[in-house]
């Protein structure tokens, strides 16, 4: 386990910025009340076996006592680095991202299942959408009862979405909570 170096930190923050925008500082400077210390520590990012973890400092201190081979996971895994060095956010980052998301999309109950199987979000399944979305922005997908279902990338801006036909793709799928069942082994 080691802290992230410059390049890796920029990669992680860039990805997160797409989803959270200026709320990124909420993630980075979140006070953590874990552990026996009276003063709240901070959260930090650690790299272990090509996976990036979002851990509180108190937990990190104690995790250093475990040998690298024996350490499986710590804190919250938010993503992993591929062989070519690119960073991908996994579904486990959903809680963190959904709380600080800037662009949200609510989908109708009829198309929830379709999204949970890994399909993209179509215009016909769109219930509500936040304003001022640019294409390529990170978007978090919610159900109509405000349960976070996953996240993706916006294919079109909000304005263009108005004129789209019902079978047009609005959000390109990246991760959804159905993956916990489908890709249990890969997480």
């Amino acid at each position, binding site marked *: 386990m080691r802290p992230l170096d410059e390049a890796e930190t920029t990669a992680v923050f860039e990805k997160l910025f797409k989803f959270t925008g200026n709320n990124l500082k909420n993630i980075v400077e979140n006070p953590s*009340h874990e552990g026996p210390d009276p003063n709240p520590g901070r959260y930090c990012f650690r790299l272990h076996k090509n996976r990036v973890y979002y851990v509180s400092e108190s937990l990190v201190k104690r995790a250093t006592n475990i040998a690298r081979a024996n350490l499986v996971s710590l804190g919250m895994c938010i993503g992993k680095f591929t062989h070519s060095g690119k960073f991908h956010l996994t579904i486990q980052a959903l809680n963190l991202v959904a709380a600080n998301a800037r662009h*949200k999309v609510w989908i109708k109950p009829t198309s929830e299942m379709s999204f949970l199987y890994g399909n993209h979000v179509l215009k016909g399944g*769109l219930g509500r*959408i936040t304003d*001022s979305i640019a294409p390529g922005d990170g978007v978090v997908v919610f159900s109509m009862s405000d349960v976070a279902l996953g996240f993706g990338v916006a294919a079109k801006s909000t304005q263009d979405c108005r004129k789209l036909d019902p079978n047009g793709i609005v959000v390109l799928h990246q991760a959804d909570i159905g993956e916990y069942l489908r890709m249990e082994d890969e997480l």
Partner: protein
Amino acid sequence: MGKKKQKVVLPPDLPPEISEDEIEISDEDLEFVKENRDYAGFVSRLDTQSITKHVTRVADVKEGALEAIYEKRLQKKSVVKENEESGVKLDPVDALPVKTLDGKLYYRALPKKVNGEDENKAGEDEKDDGADKGIVKLTKPERRAKLKKIKKEAKKQGKELTETKEAEQAPQAAVLAEVKKDLTAEEAFESKKHKLAELGIALLADPESNIKSLKEMLQIARDDNPSIAKLGFLSLLAVFKDIIPGYRIRLPTEKELEMKVSKDVKKMRFHESTLLSTYKGYLQKLIASEKQFAFHQVVVRCICNLLDSVPHFNCRESLLEVVVRNLASHDDVVRKLCYTTIKSLFTNEGKHGGEATVEAVRLIAYHVKANNCQLHPDFVEVLMSLSFDEDLRRAEVQDRDNKAKHKKNKIKNVKEPSKLQENDRKKSKKELMAKTREEVSADYKSVSLAPDVMEKIKMQSETISAVFETYFRILKHTMISTAASASEAHPLLAPCLNGLGKFSHLVDLDYIGDLMNYLKKLAGGGSSQDNSSQKCSENLTVSERLRCCIVAFKVMRNNLDALNVDLQDFFVQLYNLVLEYRPGRDQGEVLVEALKIMLCDDRQHDMQKAAAFVKRLATFSLSIGSAESMAALVTLKNLLQKNVKCRNLLENDAGGGSVSGSIAIYQPYATDPNLSGALASVLWELNLLSKHYHPAISTMASGISNMNTAQNQIYHTLSPQQAFMEFSLERESFNPKGDIRKSNNKRKRANESSILAGIDSTSDTSNSINEDEVSKKLSKHFTVLHNIKENERLRGELDRVTLSLNLYEEYKKQKKAGRTKIKKNKI
């Protein structure tokens, strides 16, 4: 028109030729003249103009009118003769009985009045139609005439006395001249008034034959005397209102003039041309005198009335231009007149077929542009009374479909028989039928007065584009001015936003995005780091920013079929504006409307956001007057009823427990409702509010606190706006009028008992506060404090005393020691 009779009318008789030398003026004569001014006033009373007119143009006048004119002439002649006789005989002894000065007036005036009344009566008896109107018309100028008469009488008395002194010295000619001047002002006034009335009645009775009287009336209206001119304007207005036909007059072309036409057509043409020419002359005079301050109100009133009653007639553009220009005048009365006129113009589109609306709206847009948006809000508010017919589109589509079908049929018909030769006849027959059908429909359209659907659509679209051009210009101007300068008033912004809200469903989809962007910037929102939007938000008042939010929501709601957009930024703005609101400075109605539209009517279930608003509204209602507080509480209740999860705010579970979401602690100063963590807070404000001095608020607050456990949910049908209106300071009522409906809530809650205990305890402690106990405890507490202080003080004193005693002891010891030492030394 009339027959060209070869009658030659003799000019009136001239007075007998007496050379001036023979006339000797005696003192008695002078006195006589002084006393009987009326006798000498015949010179002024001779209406030379009309006499010459009668002499030269008598041939053109019709028989009936001719007779009337002869009558008048005869009467005048008789009056003139009387005066002549009395004038020539300057012998006071031979004159008719002389009464006192006051009596004389009546003696002289009576015959004239009698004449005038006779003429009036004659006019009424002869023709029935217009008689009633004639009486009505008479009252207005006549009333004013009477008022003026009384005033002038009083003045005249004074004038005469001064004049007489001067007249004594001058010779007769000079006397006559002065007398003439003096009398012209008064007598001419009277005569003109009477004349106006006569002409008016005659015109109304038979407009076609008496059309020339219009010209005379116009002549009178061109008089220098302002009061006469005003009277002239008003009487002409009344006459025109009734005379003007229901169609636009088109003057005959050269060709048509050359053609031989019947008497009636000629008469009609003459009538129309005279009418039109006098109307134009009248309008010119009106517009010219509008600049003068004395005439301003009267002229504007005339123009407004004309525009209101005959908007379809010629010269409408000049009328419109004046009215629209005066919408921006400083005079309140004038502005109100113009406002009501244009409003009625917009609502009564049937009168003018929509063209006037287009022109008026274009003029308004032009004025807004020219004055750089610094105008009275009435200017733009008048656009709110526009109404657009949306069904026209449907009719147009149907028409198109029908025409297409027709075309298809025709093509089919043409194609099929072309193959067979025998059907040539049939084909031609069918074509003929089709052609005749077309011709018939074209004729029908030209005859029917209903405007074509296509034309209507075109006019509507032009109006809409002009209206929106104005609105967007105002918005843009507000943006630019707030970014540039510090404090510039935006008087047009409020009605502009209201209008946008009303007509938002007519905005094209392409422009909605731009519009929303503008509104966002104006409301001071967006994730912008740049300074321009910050400046915007600082310079607009809270009410204006609230209005921006309201409009944004209205626009979004009206375009729901396109896309349901979540206006997050406006929610953030509202969240912050609720804090910035100050009761005296800002308008409560706007705030309450914003609350209603954005929170009560919304069907979202975003828990974090709703909880944030609930908490903020509760905090807000603590520090604000009862009206806004009531409105906030109503909204709060509404939100709590809709969002079930927010009800854990009512429980004593600080930290939120499992429902708090990702944010564990409530951030009261957070700007974003989503990040406030309000689900982790508790609504302790309700406890304080239940002790509010206003009984309604306290009951409401305690009702909300018990919402979780209440068996019967009480649904108030009150909206926040109604609540605000009822409790605002103007009403000062302590009894709400909303009807309370009870409905049984049969939802079972598993953890009800535990919560019940919790809530009961809190409510018990809050309700069952015994005042005596409190006072006892307080007194105990304070006595203890007092005792402690006393204790300390005494202790301090004790310490001092012991210290001083010790010192004394020491001193004594040392003294002793000193003495023994000295003794020792001595020894």
